[in-house]
C-alpha cells in the first residue's frame, strides 16, 4: 500500500492552490489529515495488510455482496417511445372478428390490451355464442410449443420466396403433366376463400378441392342434399318449439354447432312458454342431462325407436323392431302430433338415412322448428370424396396433396391407408397453424396464422356474413392460406384488398366495409329459395336404416366429442385440458363410459382412494381388428350394452408431455360413423388414475342446496307453502317460535344505501352446464393451471366451477324412512346415484356473503367486505392460514399450494413468454401461499364505474358485467347493481324463484340462484 503520488481533484487544485484553500475551508471544518496517512513514507512502506485485516475485508465484502444479492429482481417495463394511435396503455380495445378453425365457428369480440389479445367474448349483436373451446382459443394463439413458426422443407427452415418458387414450379409441372393434386381443407365457411380456391383450381385444372371434417356430420348434409337440394345443415329454431324429441342429438353441445341459445330461449317458465324435451340416448350427454325426460336407449334401439316413431306419426309401416321404450315412443308420437308444427324431431346418428327419416317426420309434423332455408354451413366435409381421395392416394393416382389445417394422420380411422398413399405423393404441402403429424410428414410445412392474426370472412348460416380481422401482429413468420393461394394462382393482390373488394362487390349490398368490419358481421337477406323436387324414397331409406341396425351385435360404441376438447384441435391448450367435463367432472382424460349394470357384470368400478381421487380399471376394446386399452368410467345414465368414448384425445405429436393424455378414439371412427356395432371388451390389468374435480355424485338429501321443481308446481303452488312449497325459506327456532331464518340476525347489516351493490343471479333452469363461464373466468382472472396430478388430489384452481349432481336411488330422508331403511342404509341410498339419474348443474363461485364466515376468521384481516357487496381478498396481506377456506360452506376458496407461475414444475402457459402474453394485466398473478377466489370481476366493475365517471354520466342500466355473465350464452348468469332498480338483476333478486344456497346459515350471499324448473308432464 505504499504510495507517494500526489492526488488532485481538479485542475485548479493542481495549478492554483489559493482557490483550493478557500474552498477547502468552506467545505470541511477540519483538514483531512491526508499527510498523516500518506506523508510518512516509511510507515506506508512498512504497512501491510494483516491476516486479521484481510479476514475483516473478506467478511465485509462477502456480507455486503450477499446483502446486495438479496434485492428482488428488477423487471423493466419500457414505455412507448412513439405511442400507437389506437392504443392507450391500460385501456382495452375490443375488436369484432370471427372464429373458424374447422370445427368451432363463432362471431366473437376480442379484448386486446397493449396490442395483445387477452380474451374472447361472444359478439352478441351478431347473435354470437361462445363455448369453452371458443373462449380458450385465445390461449392457443400463444401456443409456442405447437405452432409452426417458420416455413420448412423437410424439417429445414426455408424462406417464403424459395418455398413459393419451388412449390410453384412443382405445381406447374404437375399441372402440365395433368397429374391430379388435391387441396384438402377443413370446413372453411368463407365465401371469399371459396372464390379464391375456385380461382386457384381454375388456374390449375388438375387441382381438386376436398373438404374434410375430422368429426363429420355428413349424414345430415347428405340428407339435406337428397331432400332439399342443399349441401348444408338444417337450422333449428328451438325457441319456438313446444315439443323436442331427440334421438341422441347432442344439440346443446356439438350437434350442428349447438343450439343452446335458442333452446333456452324456449324454456322460460316466467313467460309460461317452456318446451317439453325428451332425449333418447345412450351416452349421458349435456343435452340429455338438460332434458325434461331422458330415456336410456342404446344406439341400435335408437334407430328402431326413430322408425317406430316415423310409423306412428306418418302411419306408414316401414320395417322396424320393437324396443324396450315403445310405450314412451307412442306417448311422444301423440305429444308431437298434438303440438304439430311446434314440435321437432332430431337425431344425432351420423347416417343419411336416419337424418332423412327425421326430416320426414318433421315434414309430416309440418314442423316450423326445422329451417331448411337459412341453413348452416359449418360442416361441409364430404366423406365420400375423402374416402375416394384415400383410395386414389393408395393406388398412386394422386400426385400432390395440399393440406390446410387438417391432420388426417391423427383424425382418420384408416391412417395406415392414408400414410401409405402419402408416401406415394410427389408433392405434399401442409399449410398449417400447428405443427401436427401431417405437417411433419409433408415435404413443405408452411405456417398459417391463427385466426386472431388473420383477415377473413365467414358465412356460418345463410344470412350472417362475418368478418375476421387480425387483433395482433403475427407472432411467427406466417402467411394466410388465401394469400398463398392468390400468390400461387399468379394473383398479386393482397388478400386484404381482395377481401375488401369481394365483400363490397358481392356481399355488402352497398353497405360500408368499415361498419361491417367494426360490427364484425353483416346481415344479408336470405334471397329467393329455389324449389327442389326431392326424389328420395323414404321407404328405401327406412328399410336400409332398419336393416343396417338389425346387424347390430355385441356392445355398441357411441363416439362423441367432449365439451372440453371437441375434435382435438386444441389438445395442447392447458385451459381445456384442465376444464372438467360437465358430466363426469374429469379433467385431463378421456375414458370409456359404461353403464352401472354393465360395470357390475364385467367387474369394473371407480373406487375413491384415500387421497380423495378416483381410480379406474382398464378395458381393452377391439373392433375390426383394432384395439385400444382405455380406462373405464362408470357412468350413470349410460345405456346398458353401449359404451361412450370421446374423440379428440390421445393426440401426441408435437404436444407437451402433460397434454398427451387419453386414448385416440379416431381409429374406431370407421366411415365417420359415430355409432359402431360389435365391439368386444375385455378387462385388463392396471389401475388408471383419474383427475376428477368432484367425487360425490348426489346431493345426499340436502335439497335446500339445489332446488328443483316442475313447471306445474311452479305455476300452481305457493313457493313458500309449508308443506308443498318448492322454494321454502329456512326456518329457525327463535323464542320458541318457528320464524324465517332471515328475520333474525346476529350481525349488523352493511349500509347499502349509497353506491352500487352487486348481485349475481344464476338461473338453474337456463344453465346447461356448458362451462363457457369457467374458461372465461380462467382467462379474465389469470387462474393458474395446475396439471393432472394436482387436480387429482383436489387442487384445481377454478374460481368458478359447475357442480353436477345426479339424483340418487332414494331422494329424501323421508322416503328412506318410509322404505324402512336404517340410518346407515339411508345414507348409502342418498349417496348412491340412480341408474338413469336426473342431472342438475349448479355453477358455484364465491357467494360474496354479506355475513361472510371467511371474513371473521382471518387473523390478519386479509379478506374483508367491500362497499359494493363483494367479499374481497387482499393477496398481499394473506399469510395463508386457510382458515377462511375451511370456514367457507361453499368451499370456493382456492389456495396457492405452490408457485404456479414461472415454475418448471408447472410448465403451462404461465411458464413461458408467449403463454404469459394472455395474462390480464388488470389482475395480479398470485404468488405461492396465498388464498384466492372469485372477486366478482372487481377490475371490470371498477372499469365500468371509471368509464361512466369520465364520461360524466351515471352507470347505465345493465352496464355492469363480469366475465362469466358476459360469456354466458343462455343468459343464466345475470350480473348487476341491485341499487339500480332498472337493472335486470334487481327484479331477479326479488323473484319468487330466487333463493340462496344454504340459506339456513344466513350468510346472506350476493349470489342468488333461481329454482330450476323442469317441464315434467308426468309430475
Amino acid at each position, binding site marked *: 500500500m505504499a504510495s507517494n503520488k500526489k492526488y488532485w481533484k481538479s485542475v485548479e487544485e493542481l495549478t492554483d492552490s489559493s482557490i483550493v484553500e478557500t474552498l477547502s475551508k468552506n467545505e470541511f471544518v477540519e483538514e483531512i489529515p491526508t499527510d498523516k496517512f500518506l506523508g510518512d513514507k516509511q510507515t506506508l512502506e512498512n504497512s501491510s495488510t494483516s491476516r486479521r485485516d484481510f479476514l475483516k475485508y473478506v467478511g465485509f465484502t462477502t456480507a455486503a455482496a450477499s446483502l446486495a444479492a438479496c434485492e428482488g429482481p428488477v423487471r423493466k417495463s419500457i414505455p412507448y417511445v412513439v405511442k400507437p394511435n389506437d392504443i392507450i396503455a391500460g385501456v382495452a380495445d375490443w375488436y369484432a372478428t370471427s372464429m373458424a378453425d374447422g370445427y368451432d365457428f363463432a362471431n366473437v369480440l376480442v379484448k386486446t390490451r397493449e396490442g395483445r389479445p387477452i380474451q374472447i367474448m361472444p359478439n352478441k349483436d351478431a347473435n354470437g355464442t361462445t363455448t369453452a373451446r371458443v373462449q380458450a382459443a385465445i390461449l392457443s394463439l400463444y401456443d409456442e410449443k405447437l405452432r409452426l413458426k417458420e416455413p420448412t422443407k423437410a424439417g429445414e427452415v426455408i424462406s417464403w420466396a424459395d418455398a413459393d418458387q419451388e412449390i410453384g414450379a412443382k405445381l406447374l409441372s404437375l399441372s402440365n403433366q395433368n397429374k391430379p393434386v388435391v387441396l384438402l381443407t377443413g370446413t372453411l365457411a368463407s365465401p371469399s376463400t371459396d372464390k379464391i380456391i375456385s380461382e386457384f383450381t381454375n388456374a390449375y385444372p388438375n387441382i381438386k378441392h376436398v373438404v374434410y371434417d375430422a368429426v363429420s356430420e355428413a349424414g345430415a348434409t347428405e340428407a339435406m342434399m337428397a331432400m332439399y337440394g342443399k349441401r348444408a345443415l338444417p337450422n333449428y329454431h328451438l325457441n319456438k318449439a313446444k315439443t323436442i324429441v331427440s334421438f341422441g342429438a347432442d344439440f346443446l353441445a356439438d350437434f350442428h354447432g349447438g343450439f343452446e341459445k335458442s333452446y333456452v330461449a324456449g324454456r322460460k317458465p316466467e313467460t309460461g312458454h317452456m318446451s317439453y324435451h325428451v332425449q333418447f340416448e345412450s351416452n349421458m350427454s349435456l343435452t340429455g342431462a338438460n332434458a325434461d325426460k331422458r330415456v336410456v336407449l342404446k344406439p341400435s334401439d335408437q334407430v328402431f325407436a326413430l322408425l317406430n316413431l316415423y310409423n306412428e306419426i306418418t302411419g306408414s309401416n316401414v320395417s322396424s323392431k320393437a324396443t324396450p321404450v315403445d310405450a314412451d315412443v307412442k306417448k311422444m308420437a301423440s305429444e308431437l302430433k298434438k303440438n304439430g308444427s311446434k314440435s321437432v324431431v332430431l337425431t344425432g346418428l351420423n347416417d343419411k338415412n336416419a337424418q332423412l327419416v327425421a326430416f320426414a317426420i318433421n315434414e309430416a309434423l309440418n314442423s316450423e322448428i326445422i329451417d331448411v332455408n337459412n341453413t348452416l354451413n359449418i360442416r361441409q366435409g364430404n366423406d365420400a370424396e375423402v374416402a375416394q381421395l384415400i383410395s386414389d392416394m393408395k393406388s398412386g393416382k394422386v400426385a400432390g396433396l395440399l393440406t390446410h389445417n387438417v391432420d388426417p394422420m391423427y383424425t382418420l380411422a384408416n391412417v395406415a391407408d392414408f400414410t401409405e398413399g402419402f408416401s406415394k405423393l410427389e408433392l405434399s404441402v401442409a399449410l398449417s397453424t400447428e405443427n401436427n403429424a401431417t405437417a411433419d410428414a409433408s415435404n413443405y410445412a408452411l405456417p398459417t396464422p391463427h385466426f386472431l392474426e388473420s383477415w377473413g370472412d365467414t358465412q356460418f348460416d345463410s344470412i350472417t356474413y362475418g368478418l375476421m380481422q387480425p387483433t395482433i401482429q403475427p407472432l411467427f413468420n406466417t402467411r394466410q392460406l388465401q394469400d398463398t393461394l392468390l400468390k400461387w394462382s399468379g394473383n398479386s393482390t393482397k388478400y386484404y384488398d381482395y377481401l375488401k373488394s369481394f365483400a363490397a362487390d358481392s356481399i355488402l349490398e352497398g353497405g360500408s366495409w368499415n361498419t361491417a368490419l367494426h360490427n364484425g358481421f353483416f346481415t344479408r337477406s336470405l334471397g329467393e329459395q329455389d324449389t327442389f323436387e326431392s326424389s328420395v324414397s323414404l321407404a328405401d331409406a327406412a328399410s336400409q336404416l332398419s336393416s343396417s341396425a338389425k346387424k347390430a351385435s355385441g356392445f355398441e360404441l357411441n363416439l362423441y366429442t367432449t365439451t372440453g376438447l371437441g375434435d382435438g384441435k386444441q389438445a395442447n391448450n392447458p385451459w381445456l385440458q384442465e376444464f372438467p367435463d360437465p358430466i363426469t367432472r374429469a379433467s385431463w382424460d378421456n375414458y370409456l363410459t359404461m353403464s352401472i349394470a354393465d360395470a357390475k357384470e364385467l367387474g369394473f368400478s371407480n373406487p*375413491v*382412494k*384415500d*387421497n*380423495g381421487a378416483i381410480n379406474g380399471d382398464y378395458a381393452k376394446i377391439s373392433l375390426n381388428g383394432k384395439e385400444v386399452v382405455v380406462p373405464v368410467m362408470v357412468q350413470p345414465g349410460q345405456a346398458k350394452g353401449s359404451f361412450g368414448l370421446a374423440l379428440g384425445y390421445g393426440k401426441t405429436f408435437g404436444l407437451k408431455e402433460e397434454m398427451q393424455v387419453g386414448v385416440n378414439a379416431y381409429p374406431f371412427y370407421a366411415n365417420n360413423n359415430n355409432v359402431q356395432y360389435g365391439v368386444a371388451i375385455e378387462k385388463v390389468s392396471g389401475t388408471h388414475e383419474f383427475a376428477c374435480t*368432484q*367425487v*360425490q355424485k348426489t*346431493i*345426499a338429501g*340436502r335439497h335446500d*342446496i339445489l332446488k328443483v321443481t316442475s313447471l306445474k308446481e311452479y305455476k300452481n303452488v305457493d313457493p313458500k307453502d309449508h308443506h308443498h312449497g318448492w322454494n321454502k325459506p329456512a326456518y329457525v327456532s327463535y323464542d320458541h317460535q318457528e320464524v324465517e331464518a332471515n328475520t333474525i340476525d346476529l350481525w349488523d347489516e352493511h349500509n347499502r344505501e349509497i353506491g352500487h351493490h352487486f348481485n349475481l343471479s344464476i338461473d338453474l333452469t337456463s344453465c346447461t352446464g356448458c362451462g363457457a363461464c369457467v374458461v372465461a373466468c380462467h382467462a379474465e382472472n389469470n387462474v393458474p393451471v395446475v396439471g393432472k396430478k*394436482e387436480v387429482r*388430489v*383436489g*387442487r384445481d384452481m377454478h374460481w368458478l366451477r359447475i*357442480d*353436477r*349432481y345426479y339424483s340418487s336411488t332414494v331422494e329424501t*330422508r323421508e322416503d328412506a324412512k318410509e322404505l324402512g331403511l336404517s*340410518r*346407515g342404509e339411508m*345414507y348409502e341410498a342418498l*349417496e348412491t346415484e340412480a341408474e338413469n339419474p336426473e342431472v342438475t348443474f*349448479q355453477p*358455484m363461485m364465491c357467494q360474496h356473503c354479506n355475513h361472510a*364466515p371467511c371474513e*371473521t*376468521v*382471518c*387473523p*390478519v*384481516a386479509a379478506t374483508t367486505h367491500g362497499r359494493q357487496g363483494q367479499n374481497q381478498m387482499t393477496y398481499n*396481506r*394473506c*399469510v*395463508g*392460514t*386457510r*382458515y377462511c*377456506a*375451511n*370456514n367457507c*360452506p*361453499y*368451499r370456493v*376458496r*382456492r*389456495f*396457492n*399450494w*405452490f*408457485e404456479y407461475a414461472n415454475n418448471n414444475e408447472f410448465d403451462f402457459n404461465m411458464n413461458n413468454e408467449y403463454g404469459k402474453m394472455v395474462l390480464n394485466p388488470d389482475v395480479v398473478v398470485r404468488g*405461492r*401461499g*396465498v*388464498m384466492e377466489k372469485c372477486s366478482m370481476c372487481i377490475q371490470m366493475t371498477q372499469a365500468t364505474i371509471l368509464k361512466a365517471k369520465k364520461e360524466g354520466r351515471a352507470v347505465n342500466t345493465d352496464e355492469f358485467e363480469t366475465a362469466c355473465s358476459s360469456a354466458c350464452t343462455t343468459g343464466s348468469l345475470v350480473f348487476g347493481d341491485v341499487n339500480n332498480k332498472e337493472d335486470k338483476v334487481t327484479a331477479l333478486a326479488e323473484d319468487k324463484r330466487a333463493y340462496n344456497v*344454504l340459506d339456513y*346459515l344466513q*350468510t346472506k350471499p350476493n349470489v342468488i340462484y333461481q329454482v330450476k324448473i323442469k317441464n315434467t308432464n308426468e309430475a
Partner: protein
Amino acid sequence: MSHYEAPIREPLVLGDKSYHDITEDIAKPIEGKANKNWYMAFYISLAAMLWGFGCIFYTVGTGIGVWGLSKNIGWAWDITNFVWWVGIGHAGTLISAVLLLFRQKWRMAINRSAEAMTIFAVFQAGLFPIIHMGRPWNAYWVLPLPNQFGSLWVNFNSPLLWDVFAISTYLSVSLVFWWTGLLPDFAMIRDRAVKPFQKKIYALLSFGWSGRAKDWQRFEEVSLVLAGLATPLVLSVHTIVSMDFATSINPGWHSTIFPPYFVAGAIFSGFAMVQTLLGIMRKVTNMEEYITRLHVEYMNIVIILTGGIVAVAYATEFFIAWYTGSPYENYTYLSVGAATGPYWWAFWSLLIFNIFIPQLLWFKKIRRSFIWSFIISIAINIGMWFERFDIIAIVLSKGHLPSTWWRFEPTFVDVGIFIGTIGFFFVLFLLYARTFPVIAQAEVKTILKSSGEFYKKRRAQGIPTKPTVVVADKEIKEVNPDKNKKE
C-alpha cells in the same frame, strides 16, 4: 414445617430418606454421567428432530402443497398436531397451579417434569401455526405490531388471533412459574458443583438465590401469585383453541360444548403424557421412591374423571347430531355417517383408545400398576390424537356441499414433521433430564417429615419423629425392619 398427616394416608416419599439423601438423589443425574440408554434415546430423538426440520424446510421452501391437503381440506395433520401438543401441555399448569392452590402435596414429585413437559409441548404446538401458513415468513403479521404498512391491523374477531395471545401468554406464564420453582434447586446444584464452568452456569440460572429467609418468603409469595394467575390459563388456553372450531360454521365444529369438552380432553391427554414420561423417567433416573404408586394412582384418578367428561361430551355430540335431524349433521366426526364412512377406522380408534381402554382404570389393581398405567397412557395419547384428527379431517372431508366432499391422505412430509416434533420434544426432555433437577427437591423436602414413609411409620409406632443425631438415626434404622425391603 411438617404438618400432621393421618397415618392411613400412604407416604409420598418412600424409604428412610434424609434431606441429604434427597439432595443426592436429585443431583445424581446431573452430576453423574449419562448411560448408554440415554445416549441411544437422545440420538434417536435427535435424528427424528433433524428429519422433521428437513421436512419443515422442504415445506417452507416449496409450498404447503407438499402436504396432503386439498381445496376442500385446508387443515389436517398440522392443526391436529397443534391441538394435540397444546393439549399435552395442559397437565403442567394444572399440576403446578391448581394443585398448589388446593394444597395437594403429591404434586411436588411430579410438577417439575410436568411443567417441563408443558413448556416443551407448547414449543412443538407453537411450531404448527407458523409452519402451516402459506407464507410463514410473514407470520409476525398476526401480532398486533405497530407497522408502516399503512393502516393494517390484526382482526380481533379471529379465533386464530386469540390463539396467538392464548398460547404466548400460556407459554410465558408457564415458563416463569417453572423457573421460579427451579431457583432453589438450581442454587442447590450450584452449591454442589465442583467444576467452575458448571458452577458459573448454575449460578446464572439460579438468579443469585441465597437461601435467606427473605428469599424463601418471596419464593412462596411469587409461587402463590403465579398459581393464581396461571389457574385461569388452564381453562382459557384450550377454551380458545376449541373456539377455532366452535366459532366456525362447519357442522361438527359449530358446537357450544367445545370449550369445557376441550379443556377436559386436554387435561386428560396431559396427564396421560405425564404418566408416559414419568413411567420412563422414574426408572431411568432412579426416582422410584419419589414417584410412587400413589402418584400414579392419583393421576389415574384425574384421568378417569376427565376421561369421563370427555366421554359424556362425545355422547352429547353424537346425540345432538342425531337429534337435530339436520342432513348437514349426518357426517360429523361423531355420527353414524362417520362410523360407517371412509374414516370408520379413525372413528373407532377414537372411541377405543379414548373411551373404552381408559375404563380399565376403574380397577384398582390396574390403576396402581405401573406397567398398565403406562400402556393406558400411551393409548390415551393415541386416542387424543385421533380425536383432533377426527374433528378436523372428518368434518372437513364432508362439508356442506356434497360436491366438495373429499378425503385426506398424509404425505411423507406430514408424517415427517409430526415425527420431527416428537423427536424435538424428546431431545428437549432428555437434555432437561440431564441438566435440570427433575424433582422439586426443595419442595419435596418440606413434606419429608409429614409424608415420608419412614417418618410416618415412626409416628405410627409412637417413636419421636425428631431424630436428634445421626447416630440415633442409625439406631432407628436398625429397628426399622422394612428399611431394605423392596416392593
